[in-house]
């Protein structure tokens, strides 16, 4: 008997008290919790996102599409970044105003090489206002998971209002489970020392979020 069969047989013996014929539905799951906490017009949801991002020490910027290349050039320049990773599907015009090395997101790059890159610019799949969360799903404008992890500075562009949802339940409805997903709420942090929150351990220590309007 394989260990698989042993474990499954133990489970079945352990559940002798459960009526098996009816299937899992015999245990009702009440779902009377809220789909979102308070109804907001779209603009309020964007404001809530901005407030919650800032509350967890992300730096938030608000700009229209025409102003984005200039803003990105300003942010990268201000920080003194000499190189930036760009996912393959990042709209080329976003970095058009920047004067620095653009490193492509390709499989051959080693983690060590990525570690030498100063910044990364990506889009996102969805942003959650109530929790101040950005979700990346590996789409072409977001790239491989590691590019938003190893560099110390991440600029994430959120298309508002269409990429913003109010709540966690609404975000999950929009996401495809088969894709590798990274949920980001503020910069990396730890509370392991006397439960005193410190921003910046292994992930990017600076997270900037650009709320881009049409």
């Amino acid at each position: 008997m394989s260990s698989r069969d042993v474990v499954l047989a133990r489970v079945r013996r352990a559940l002798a008290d459960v009526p098996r014929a009816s299937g899992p539905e015999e245990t009702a799951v009440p779902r009377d919790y809220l789909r979102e906490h308070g109804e907001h017009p779209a603009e309020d949801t964007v404001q809530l996102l901005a407030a919650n991002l800032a509350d967890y020490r992300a730096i938030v910027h608000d700009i229209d599409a025409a102003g984005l290349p200039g803003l990105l050039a300003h942010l990268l320049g201000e920080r003194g970044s000499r190189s930036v990773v760009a996912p393959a599907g990042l709209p080329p015009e976003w970095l058009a105003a920047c004067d620095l090395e653009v490193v492509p997101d390709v499989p051959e790059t080693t983690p060590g090489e990525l570690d030498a890159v100063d910044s990364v610019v990506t889009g996102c799949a969805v942003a959650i206002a109530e929790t101040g969360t950005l979700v990346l799903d590996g789409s072409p404008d977001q790239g491989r998971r590691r590019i938003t992890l190893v560099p110390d500075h991440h600029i994430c562009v959120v298309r508002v209002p269409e990429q913003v949802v109010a709540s966690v339940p609404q975000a999950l409805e929009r996401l495809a489970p088969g894709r590798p997903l990274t949920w980001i709420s503020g910069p990396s942090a730890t509370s392991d020392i006397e439960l005193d929150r410190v921003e910046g351990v292994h992930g990017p220590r600076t997270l900037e979020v650009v709320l881009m309007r049409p």
Partner: protein
Amino acid sequence: MSVTDLGMPAFPAAAARSTRDTRLRANLRYATHTIRDKRARAVSELGDWAQLRAAGRAIKDRTLRHLDHYLERLEEAVTAAGGQVHWATDAAEANRIVTRLVRATGEREVVKVKSMATQEIGLNEALAEAGISAYETDLAELIVQLGKDRPSHILVPAIHRNRSEIRDIFRSEMGSWGRPAPDGLSDRPAELAEAARLHLREKFLRAKVGISGANFMVAETGTLVVVESEGNGRMCLTLPETLISVVGIEKVVPTWQDLEVFLQLLPRSSTAERMNPYTSMWTGTTDGDGPQTFHLVLLDNGRTDTLADTVGRQALRCIRCSACLNVCPVYERAGGHAYGSAYPGPIGAILTPQLRGTASALDASLPYASSLCGACYEVCPVAIDIPEVLVHLRERVVEGGKVTRRGVKTLIKPAKGHAAERAAMRAAGLVFDRPGVLRAGQRLAARTRKLHPRRLPGPGRAWSDTRDLPPVPAESFRDWWQRTRGGERGNGREEGGK
């Protein structure tokens, strides 16, 4: 169980030692009170917390009551997505599987995401015996590993260490594991975190094998979820070529939609945040992104035995948030080490004696490591009635009874060392079931009341070492009633016996 847990003293003795350690008491008090207040605020932000809690409980109950069904679906989905699923009946088998998988890569070192399951099975020690170095990468786990210490909290394993102790450990130990601590390292948390970042980065960048647990596994999609703060999890889950996840079978949830409940319950209950900084979700492997080989090791190790107990089963709902530790007055004073397992605090007191049984003196003492104050049940995001299970397990300890051990139904005898108590409880039962005898006893006590000491000898010292006994009154209530109102208002006969 981990080798370090062998030979642990029973809980009361270990806890008594902790209560005399003033630095430990101060560290724990500060940390638990900080987080419990924050949690209360984070939870109060959600007006539907009670509904989320009820849903979380029901989803877990549904999963547990049909666990075989969901495990098979999970296996199917993970396999279809390119993962390989392994099954381990116990700790030894899980350790053998992981060791074999690491050896097959040819690597001699692995990076680890903090995981309760691998701590429970003592994986690091097993890998070390096979000549494989396992590096813990969570900051607190790093502190524990460098300090040759044991974790004392589920979420904050180094909660028993304060900043200056951590600085000393980093200064003296980092060098022998890799990059030494920076010169002049202070005890500022930000500097300590920076030292950890530098120390671990070289390990992440060269790692070929990552080992993790998981907070949730979605049966319908085969998706695994790891919830974390520092980014060490993302490092281990995405940079290596091979990822091995060791996960308890109870961590499965039926559907993708179910995550909407747990991703609201868990962060607010554990770190008291609206959302933790990083959550990773992966389904099998993805071409060109992250590990190209993924192994999932499904772990039983006493979980099916726990499942067989219809009252104790609810402990398997646990999502390891540690809210129960942070509100527990016993944990706050005893510290995590006194619980002698990977699972300290109230949840440990009901989980460990079910996963391991109650044969050892330590495990038999755990169900008593509670004043039954109920604070743990109140904060539990999946409504585990911990006091109910504690009392249920106490019965198993003193009365014995039918249990399942390693899948086999067994009749266990009452634990040793309870004979005097059992006799006293029986005697009390006899007296209380015969109010006439009770009254005779009360009268005898009243007549001799001048002779009663306020301190007791022998076993009674457990009470009277720190507390005076109340004086015995001259007259019981019963006698007062009889004397002042006897015969009035149908107060009826008094039974002398049954």
